[in-house]
């Protein structure tokens, strides 16, 4: 770096004269193309959040989505949480029902809510998929305002077993996730609670001189404890929130994501926090967790200011074998990307990854690191919009936004692939939850997105010339049936752009949402995988060699 300040100043002046803009797409790189086919597909869901003049905070927070194969036909289906009337918080009309859409194949869906028994009750927010009873049928947890429900999947029909399971709660739930924290082969449940709120809360927030009322800033709401429920294996759960240490830090929790970040064989949990430091719970292996967010460097972005952290994904974006953390937030706060350095430490590489300037003006909720162009590098999708519906009357930020997609360049950086992807083709909306899956079995990851007071979107991945792929569907035997927590590594020498990729099985991704699909890998030019390694939560390591690409491979845990 030159040590001549005068020269630098002149250079800086010249640099400053140029208007900033997004990095141009690399020449020769095929675009990522997405098309919204919700209407044609038969997904006619419109999220009803019941906005009121009083601007109840719950109105701006819902929208969780779950993607899972509820009927075991090999095709991922879609579940939308929905709101309710305020202040009663009752689903007193069909437009407030939660909805389940069965995937009929060929990108066609049918509303099977009633047949499945999933209308729900109360003001629902979050969904989390996990086969908690290991019977091969994925079950569904739905959290909401002062209510949470566990639905046991009985061959495609769901039964509300909340009370039987011991999961009643009066908390306001905005997120949840399944993981096997004690490696006993049974999925446990971490529930993300946000704050204390009642319908008679009536603080005026906004500009009274112009009679503009806005959703109150989170600082007016107290943080609360998170909840952890240990699966006893008999259909019931034990509240171990306090004993485990999960309840100790107070948080305005938003989303949860899981990964074994220190590769000690125990899955850890990351919880985003609204205008408070986010939390990283290190699984101590003795039934307890130690909160290490600040020490690890993942509680706050490098600038040290608390952000409105929203969605989270905990996945290896740079193929170094260590799961990283990506978080969404509001305009001006950036979307932090924390790179796992190993030894329990992370580094905020938002700027170095070039993600920083790309997201500076964006506000995001649900997010996901998935390989959309199957080149061997996980890209980033974010469901975007602001939290404040009157923001445009106060500052230069937008409320409704198109979603975003950022291409992973394979060198630690991202480029903005949104323009021209099709994401900006439709009207901007108030996006919230997102679910990721290959809905049509063509090996390309699609996305379903919810929007407040707007139609859901089904983004069909039509990216041309996308590479080969492999989807690994895990069937645990000693480990939990879904294989949640299993670490998967693929190796292939055929594509020089990547040699190894890493992922793990999780259904907790994004905000208030859940995606239960096979572990997906884009393979680029590789027509086969030289080695596929699975490290099951039970400790079993399974290695498959010369696996052909372009298939969904079911792998049962070796007994």
């Amino acid at each position, binding site marked *: 770096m030159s040590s001549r300040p005068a020269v630098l*100043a002149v250079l800086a002046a010249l640099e400053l004269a140029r208007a900033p803009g997004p990095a141009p797409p690399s020449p020769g790189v095929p675009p990522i193309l997405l098309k919204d086919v919700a209407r044609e597909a038969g997904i006619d869901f419109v999220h009803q959040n019941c906005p009121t003049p009083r601007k109840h905070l719950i109105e701006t927070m819902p929208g969780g989505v779950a993607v899972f194969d509820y009927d075991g036909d090999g095709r991922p289906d879609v579940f939308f949480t929905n709101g309710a009337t305020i202040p009663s918080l009752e689903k007193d009309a069909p437009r407030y029902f939660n909805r389940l859409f069965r995937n009929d194949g060929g990108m066609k869906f049918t509303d099977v809510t009633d047949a499945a028994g999933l209308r729900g009750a109360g003001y629902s927010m979050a969904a989390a998929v996990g086969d908690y009873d290991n019977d091969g049928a994925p079950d569904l947890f739905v959290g909401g305002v002062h209510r949470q429900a566990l639905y046991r999947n009985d061959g495609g029909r769901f039964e509300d077993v909340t009370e039987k399971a011991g999961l009643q709660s009066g908390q306001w739930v905005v997120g949840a996730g399944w993981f096997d924290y004690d490696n006993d082969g049974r999925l446990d449940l971490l529930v993300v609670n946000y704050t204390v709120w009642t319908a008679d809360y009536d603080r005026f927030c906004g500009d009274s001189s112009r009679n503009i009322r806005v959703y109150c800033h989170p600082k007016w709401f107290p943080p609360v404890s998170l909840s952890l429920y240990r699966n006893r294996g008999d259909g019931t759960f034990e509240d171990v929130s306090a004993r485990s240490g999960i309840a100790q830090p107070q948080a305005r929790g938003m989303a949860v994501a899981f990964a074994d970040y220190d590769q000690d064989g125990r899955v850890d949990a990351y919880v985003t926090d609204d205008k408070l430091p986010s939390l990283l719970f290190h699984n101590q292996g003795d039934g307890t967790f130690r909160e290490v967010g600040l020490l690890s460097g993942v509680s706050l972005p490098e600038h040290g200011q608390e952000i409105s952290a929203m969605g989270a994904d905990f996945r290896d974006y740079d193929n170094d074998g260590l799961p990283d953390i990506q978080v969404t937030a509001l305009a001006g706060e950036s979307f932090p990307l924390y790179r796992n350095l190993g030894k329990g430490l992370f580094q905020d590489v938002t700027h170095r990854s070039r993600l920083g300037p790309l997201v*500076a003006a964006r506000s995001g909720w649900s997010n996901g690191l998935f390989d959309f162009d199957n080149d061997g590098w996980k890209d980033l999708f974010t469901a975007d919009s602001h939290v404040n519906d009157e923001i445009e009357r*106060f500052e230069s930020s937008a409320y409704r936004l198109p979603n975003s997609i950022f291409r992973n360049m394979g060198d630690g950086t991202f480029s903005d692939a949104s323009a021209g992807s099709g994401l900006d083709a439709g009207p901007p909306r108030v996006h919230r939850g997102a679910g990721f899956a290959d809905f049509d079995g063509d090996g390309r990851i699609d996305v379903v997105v919810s929007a407040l007071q707007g139609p859901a979107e089904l983004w069909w991945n039509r990216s041309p010339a996308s590479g080969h792929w492999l989807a690994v569907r895990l069937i645990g035997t000693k480990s939990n049936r879904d294989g949640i927590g299993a670490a998967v590594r693929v190796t292939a020498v055929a594509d020089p752009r990547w040699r190894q990729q890493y992922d793990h099985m999780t259904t907790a991704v994004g905000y208030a949402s859940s995606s239960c699909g096979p572990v997906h890998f884009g393979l680029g030019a590789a027509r086969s995988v030289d080695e596929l390694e699975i490290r099951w939560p039970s400790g079993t390591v399974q290695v498959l060699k010369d696996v052909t690409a372009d298939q969904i491979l079911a792998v049962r845990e070796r007994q």
Partner: protein
Amino acid sequence: MLGARLLVAVVSLLFAPSLLLPSQGDELAAQSRRGKDLMAAGRYAEAAVVYRELVKAVPGNPGLLLDLGMALHLSGQDQEALAPLQAAERLQPRLLPAALLLGAVNLRLGRAAAAVAPLQKAVRLQPDNREARSMLAEALVDLERYADAEPHLRRLAQTAPSDPAAWFNLGKVYEALAGQAFERLLKRDPESPLALALVADARLKQDQRTAAFHLYRQAIDRAPGLRGLHGAVAAIYRRAGHPDWAAVEEERERGLPRPDCSRETLECGFAAARHREVVASASKLSSPEACYWLVRSYNELAVQAFARLAALPASVESHEWLAGIHRSERRYLESAEEWRQAMALAPRDPRLKTELAITLRLGRDFPAARQVLEEILRAEPDSPEASALLGDVLLALEEPERAIPVLEKAVRLDEKSLPAHGALGRAYALVGRASEAIPHLRQALPADTDGSLRYQLARSYQAAGQAELAGIALKDYEEFKKASSPGPEAYGQGAPITPPR
């Protein structure tokens, strides 16, 4: 606006009789004429060279010293202008232009304290000289001697009632005086019901009715006989849709004994809108009551001054006043529009541009803020404030590489600027230059209002391989956050408005 004032001074001097002694000769006279011609042509630096020669040739001539000082000042060489001007004043103490210019030069150099004496002299010499009085008021305001500035500003407003700047400046000084009186009240008696009442008034003005209601209630509990409080509570009840409750409070207000004007002169004076009288009397007293009536009277005087401003045609000052109100109430879009309108009327005033940039920054319009700041820096490349602001905006745009040279310059220009050090530290940290970040972050710590600088310091130590110091800094951050964490009373909607007790 020193430029206009100086222009007046220059014009008056150019047409003033030459102060050269008659016996100096043709050559010197020719040089003197040349000097004047250069001044008239605006070629001040060249004129300064001529006047230096003349001063050398004719030392001790106050007129030439004055001409030299003026030329140096107008060519931007204020530091060099001081010596000849001071010499001219010493030689001819009643030389008005020398006093004026000394005041202007000291103001331009940021030496308000040194500007006061010569400007006071200028005002004494020529009481009707508005420029002198205006500059004197400016110097006194810079020194926060608002009470001394007020009579000058009042006279300026009274003698030129259509001058928006006069009313604007007067209103701002009254606001400042109210603030000082309030600080004195808080120092004397922080739990005073009078202080509570004043804070309640302020909350009510911001439409925070619930907060105001509870503050008035507390004040009433401590001073049930304090007039006006029940009336204020009644007004809140009425707006909240409770006329029956309001009637109870209004009755209580009416039931209070009238003030005894032979003793409670300040209250009676205020009620009779004799605010200047109240100020004059209360200023001599030190009681909490005196402070209370000072605050209220100064606030009323400020309101009156701004009302006079608002009644005049739109001006830079009226737009600036509105811009300030909008910004304080977080209406950044409206504030930016007002700054723009002010700039349209005074396009060469860099201060307005800076205020616009600050407002755009607050409203998160970073690209627009950047554009404005770049314009400012093109005109004033050595502005430390603009450099620091631009650096901050570039960081907000996630462009630390571009921010670094800008912030390095800001720190060079103003070594004491804590925000510039903090921003530079952050920029270094973002691009991986942790070791360089550390000293700047440490220097900026006194300006750390939310713990973020402490956190950045911890992360920088970590990145620089100084794990032990990282641990200490992180602990410091945690303790800072703990100490500044809100208690449970900060949450919720607060206690509701309740019926009369």
